[in-house]
């Protein structure tokens, strides 16, 4: 009992206590750091190394040249195009939905958020399968649309519909948070100075949510870049994306070096996107400071 009393008593010199807290911190941080260094950082580093090696182990940029020419280059462009289309659509849908939800009474807003969140936790494979059933020649959508059946699957339209529905929960959740963060007094202030609704929207509201919009759009773009469940199942041969190519090179062609180069390109694109998100959000932070909220 005496020992526990002294252990708990705050009578120790401050310095000693601090260094104990530091030692405890390092000890407790070890599992996550060691784990991620061995199973995350090192594997990515060896991917990078592999992409720069030739069959005989010598240094080469051949795999990058290969990844950036011919069919592989067009796969890269397809990936960028589909990701951009998905990002724009999920941003627009996300904006409208978040806007509508932010106006609802709490109970209805909660229910609507449930419809956003529950699909997000259902396996993407399952949701993709749902789309395949819905968009087929005799599926729900073609039954409802007059003048059909339309070709809604195994083309870019199908891929973009499917991928957008996968990214939409992210943008809705992000934008909903941003919209709730807007200081409504700023809008009221603008109105009291005689600004019309359109002017308030354009000059006050939009600039306030713009950084959030940019981040949400970039995020869905980044997440789409490395995605292939939906494109592979809902697209045709013209919708092959980088991730599918990586998978094919490893599992079908046993071509690790090429896959590694593709992986590094994907990684670089992602990191560039993340850097942009960081720049945009720090711009947003400084704008909020200027507005004094």
């Amino acid at each position, binding site marked *: 009992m005496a*020992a*526990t009393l002294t252990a*708990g*008593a705050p009578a120790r010199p401050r310095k000693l206590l601090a260094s104990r807290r530091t030692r405890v*911190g*390092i*000890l*407790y*941080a*070890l*599992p*996550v750091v060691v*784990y*991620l260094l061995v*199973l*995350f950082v090192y*594997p990515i580093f060896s*991917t990078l190394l592999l992409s720069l090696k030739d069959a005989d182990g010598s240094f080469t940029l051949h795999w990058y040249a290969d990844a950036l020419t011919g069919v592989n280059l067009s796969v890269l462009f397809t990936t960028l195009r589909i990701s951009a289309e998905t990002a724009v659509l999920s941003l627009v849908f996300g904006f*409208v*939905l978040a806007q*509508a939800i932010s*106006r609802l009474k709490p109970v209805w807003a909660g229910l*609507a958020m449930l419809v956003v969140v*529950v699909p997000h936790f*259902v*396996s*993407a*494979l*399952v949701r*993709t*399968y*749902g789309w395949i*059933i*819905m968009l*087929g020649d*005799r*599926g*729900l959508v073609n039954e409802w649309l007059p003048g059909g059946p339309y070709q809604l699957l195994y083309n870019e339209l199908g891929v973009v519909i499917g991928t957008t*529905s996968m990214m*939409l*929960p992210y943008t809705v959740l992000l934008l909903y948070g941003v*919209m709730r963060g807007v200081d*409504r007094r700023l809008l009221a202030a603008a109105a009291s100075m005689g600004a019309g*609704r359109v002017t*308030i929207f354009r000059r006050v*509201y939009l600039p306030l949510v713009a950084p959030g919009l940019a981040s949400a759009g970039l995020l869905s773009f980044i997440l789409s870049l490395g*995605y292939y*469940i939906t494109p592979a*199942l809902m697209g045709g041969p013209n919708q092959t994306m980088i991730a599918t190519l*990586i*998978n094919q090179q*490893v599992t079908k062609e046993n071509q*690790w070096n090429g*896959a*590694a180069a593709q*992986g590094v390109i*994907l*990684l670089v694109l*992602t990191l560039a996107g*993340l850097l942009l998100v960081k720049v945009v959000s720090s711009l947003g932070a400084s704008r909020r400071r200027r507005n004094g909220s």
Partner: protein
Amino acid sequence: MMELRKTLTGKIALTAVATVILLFLALPIVVILVTSFSNNAFASFPPDTWTLNWYKALFADGSKWPAALSLSALVAALSTVFSLIIGVTAATALVRSELPLRSAVFALVLGPLLIPQIVTALGLFLLFEPAAMLGSPIAIALGHTVLASPIAVLILIATLRGIDERLEDAAASMGAGRLTIARRITFPLAAPGMIAAAIFSFITSFDEFYISQFLSSVDTVTLPVQVYNSLTFEIDPSVTAVSAILIAFAILALGLVALVRWLGSGRQESLLSVENTVGVANPAGDAV
């Protein structure tokens, strides 16, 4: 935003468009649930006749689903244990200690959530292939933990931040040792967060596809990989039944998290009120 476009027609238009978008999110799931009971699993909707055949087919002789399901459950259980160990220790380090390079550690934790999963999967393949560990449940679980543990860490950071440290100080002032404090104060308060972290780790691993696909072998295939294979290479209508079960599973897990959160929400308040009635010094009693 209430100030803008307040007209009735505008309101109706916005509500209509929002409803369509919500349907866009929900319909694929509803369609799967309905189709899993339909006699005609690949075509018309709504179905003409109803059946339980696809569910029965899951457990028929020669079905691949039971093996895939049990492998996924085993892998997810292992991954949950790994993630909780990593999550609890990492959150303690990040919230309750003076950690050098804290922001670097935090960035490392976020890394797997931001890097494309296919890149992580490729890297893990390069790690486990030479070790001849492809198809091993341990290897797949270790791989899944890379994605599941950051989520566990984030949930547990939020949990620890939400625990009032004065409760622990109060216990210490009454002579409780560190172990007693951890066992009687911190652990009960952190339990809802730990259960939530465990559930999310389990779902993350159970649904994970990219890493599983790279680390699977011909004989050991996780449930998502089997679903993918059934959708690409084989024609197996019982995949609708599996999908419906996965949907039920996701809803159940989310409901469980909500329930645990709700049950746990009153705990700290009740402890604090006990603290007050027992008469322990509470320097900021009015703020509680």
